[in-house]
């Protein structure tokens, strides 16, 4: 029978997963994987959080059933998740003005957000993404049928920090009701975050322009190591009475990458609206995957709801973010030690898992092909993938690709 699919063209491999597959297949013993945003310990190994290991054993012993969760997920998980994001003193939570649903990690939450806006905003509503942004943002919104994907200026090529003047200008010029993705902290891929004062200005702009904000919250606890601090932007917006959606992921901060634990939170002005929104989340989710996976949510809930384990978790977060901070310093020191052309203090100024090195696409290709150092073509490296042993090697490789590409 002639194939129905004969006309299907081959799509380019996903920028990240394609690179990850290449890295996993590379047998070179000195390879360094700085591609995926997954934490590694100082031996470059995946790290299972101690609190998760403990909790896995406890869950296995408690012989829980494997029944379907409700469409919007595990209720106790959703409650803890919203509290983690908005804080113990959140008025929105106290007044029942939030709608939540457990989602397939951060991607799933963003897709639910996109589907929500696709139903309740005009088709032509533009979606504003930072320039640059996480590789998958565009795919998610295109998948929901949005055709106008715009960029707002974000990364300043010279300072390698936030181009705040450009960002403010672009967001001020965005049409009323535009959808805007803002990353709460530890910006992926640049590691450049707005300051508290800049967030206050952003809140003004979003409020005045009636922008539809979606906060991408994939790194709470990973930026400064402090969960409350890292949630500053979201809590500021709540305080200001701005309505928004927030998309949480537990992939990084609990190391639950493969378990796909996440949550979407809508902060609104009344309990009635929140109820309506929650029902619409369910209408979106049911024909997508019916209900979310139970295991990750049980793990997260167990950690968040037990004060002792939660405390241990916050300490592990400090260790992880601390190691990342140390690697930033070590890499910068190594680069400067061997007189690598250019200035490198953005490595320690930037925050979170990633650094936007400033290497161009050709140089990045050379890092991969010549030096077996896996990094994104954008120049992004995952600092979490560095170790004391590999910083010198990576610095030398960077110097080599910069000087030989001249």
């Amino acid at each position: 029978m002639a194939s129905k699919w004969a006309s299907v063209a081959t799509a380019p491999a996903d920028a990240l997963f394609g690179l990850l597959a290449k890295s996993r297949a590379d047998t070179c013993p000195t390879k360094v994987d700085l591609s995926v945003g997954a934490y590694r310990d100082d031996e470059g190994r995946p790290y299972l959080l101690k609190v998760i290991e403990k909790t896995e054993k406890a869950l296995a012993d408690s012989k829980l059933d494997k029944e379907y969760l409700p469409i919007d997920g595990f209720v106790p998980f959703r409650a803890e998740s919203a509290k983690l994001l908005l804080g113990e003193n959140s008025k929105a939570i106290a007044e029942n003005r939030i709608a939540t649903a457990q989602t397939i990690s951060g991607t799933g939450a963003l897709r639910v957000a996109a589907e929500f806006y696709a139903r309740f905003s005009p088709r032509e509503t533009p979606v504003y993404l930072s320039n640059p942004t996480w590789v998958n943002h565009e795919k998610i919104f295109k998948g929901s049928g949005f055709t106008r994907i715009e960029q707002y200026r974000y990364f300043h090529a010279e300072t390698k920090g936030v181009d705040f003047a450009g960002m403010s200008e672009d967001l001020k010029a965005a049409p009323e009701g535009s959808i805007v993705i803002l990353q709460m902290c530890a910006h992926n891929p640049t590691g450049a975050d707005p300051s508290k004062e800049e967030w206050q200005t952003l809140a003004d702009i979003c409020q005045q322009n009636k922008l539809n904000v979606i906060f991408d919250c994939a790194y709470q606890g990973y930026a400064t190591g402090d969960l409350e601090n890292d949630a500053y932007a979201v809590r500021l917006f709540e305080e200001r009475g701005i309505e928004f959606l927030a998309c949480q992921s537990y992939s990084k901060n609990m190391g639950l990458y493969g378990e796909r634990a996440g949550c979407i939170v809508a902060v609104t002005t009344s309990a009635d609206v929140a109820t309506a929104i929650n029902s619409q989340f369910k209408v979106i989710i049911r024909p997508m995957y019916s209900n979310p996976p139970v295991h990750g949510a049980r793990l997260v809930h167990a950690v968040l709801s037990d004060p002792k384990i939660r405390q241990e978790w916050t300490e592990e977060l400090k260790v992880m973010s601390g190691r990342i901070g140390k690697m930033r310093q070590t890499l910068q020191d190594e680069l400067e030690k061997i007189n690598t052309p250019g200035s490198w203090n953005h490595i320690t100024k930037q925050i979170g898992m990633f650094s936007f090195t400033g290497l161009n696409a050709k140089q990045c290709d050379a890092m991969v092909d010549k030096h077996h150092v896996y990094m994104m073509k954008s120049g992004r490296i995952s600092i979490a993938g560095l170790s004391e042993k590999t910083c010198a090697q990576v610095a030398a490789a960077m110097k080599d690709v910069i000087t030989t590409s001249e």
Partner: protein
Amino acid sequence: MLTSSLRSLSRRVSRSRHLAAAPARFMSRWSHVPEGPKDPILGVSEAFNADTDSRKLNLGVGAYRDDDGKPTVLKSVELAQAQIVAQVPPNEYAPIGGEKAFVDTALKLAYGEDCAPLKEGRYTALQSLSGTGALRLAAAFMQRFKPMKVFVPSPTWGNHFKIFEDSGLEVETYAYYDANTKGLNLQGLLADIDQAPDGSAFVMHACAHNPTGVDPTIEQWKEISQALKAKGHFVLVDSAYQGFASGDPRKDAAAIEILVNDGHQIGLSQSFAKNFGLYGHRVGTFSLLLDDTSEVAAVESQLKILARGIYSSPPIHGSRIVHTILTDKALYDQWLLDIKEMADRIITMRRLLVDNLASAGSTLDWSHITDQIGMFCFSGMTPEQVAKLVNEHHIYLTSNGRISMAGVTSKNVGYLAEAMHKVTSK
């Protein structure tokens, strides 16, 4: 004066919650968002939970229960889980399409060891978010590359419609259930296959049709397969009960074998929710058989883009359990026992229900209860009779008369039969 009237106004406003809520609602940018319709099946469980009568029965549930009416975890699953926990595996991201080893092992279960397209590499497959997720990938892929009219059986699983509609596809039904015989309306089915536009998509339930429990015989499947072939229809198979229907996974895959041997390049949604009792873990696969290995790269790459934009990569916990069981002889043998036990209990309940209806004095023909197969029984009761069951007997089921046999036990089957007899006798 102004101050005191303002104070009394604010007191009145704060006492009246309704008044206070209204302005806040209108201030919201989302005030135009209506409350969505409730899921009809869940409504049954909600009503059941609220009922305090001790005789209450929940026959709406689409999940297996043991003879005490309790949810179970399969023995093979418990053993596999213990093994996995002891290994302390890291929780890294699976690839977008899931771990290839798991997917290929899962496919062998569905397609058998001797499936030519699989052996020749003429297929692509991804791990999916159980059956719903697999169907959604299929729908999204069809919408993007070859939008076809989608035909689902009448009746079918309620969620089928929304999955395809939300993906922007047109959905219609094909004749399936014969209310008179309480069996298959083969002629109607064949006629609808013939009348559909060439190259439409036909969704077929692989076995244990939900909600009717009515499956075509082997001979009927062969006829259906030929009819589908004559029209060049794309066959999308929904396999959610392999092993659960007869207790024999190979027997339950007969329809898939017939279709593949006839040359259909099927799409297959494979769910492990029921047959492995992994409901909440969302384990499944979506596969597409292809003309030629040269198509694999293209189709796989596009499916990955769709999956990446919905959930990035699938959850690993459940797939690890399935993979462990399927690749370990002792665990696999245990699973065969587990699945046979579940299927046998359901078959026994069907027989008990028919026997009890007879002893309750019913003279109606209830043989369809034992003719039908799988988790569900289309009892033939009308919405009015169902309402009586709910309101007078505290027995909960969906208004189409669908009984989940999983909710029937040797302890409650007598009560159920009495009640059914009461509401169906004049």
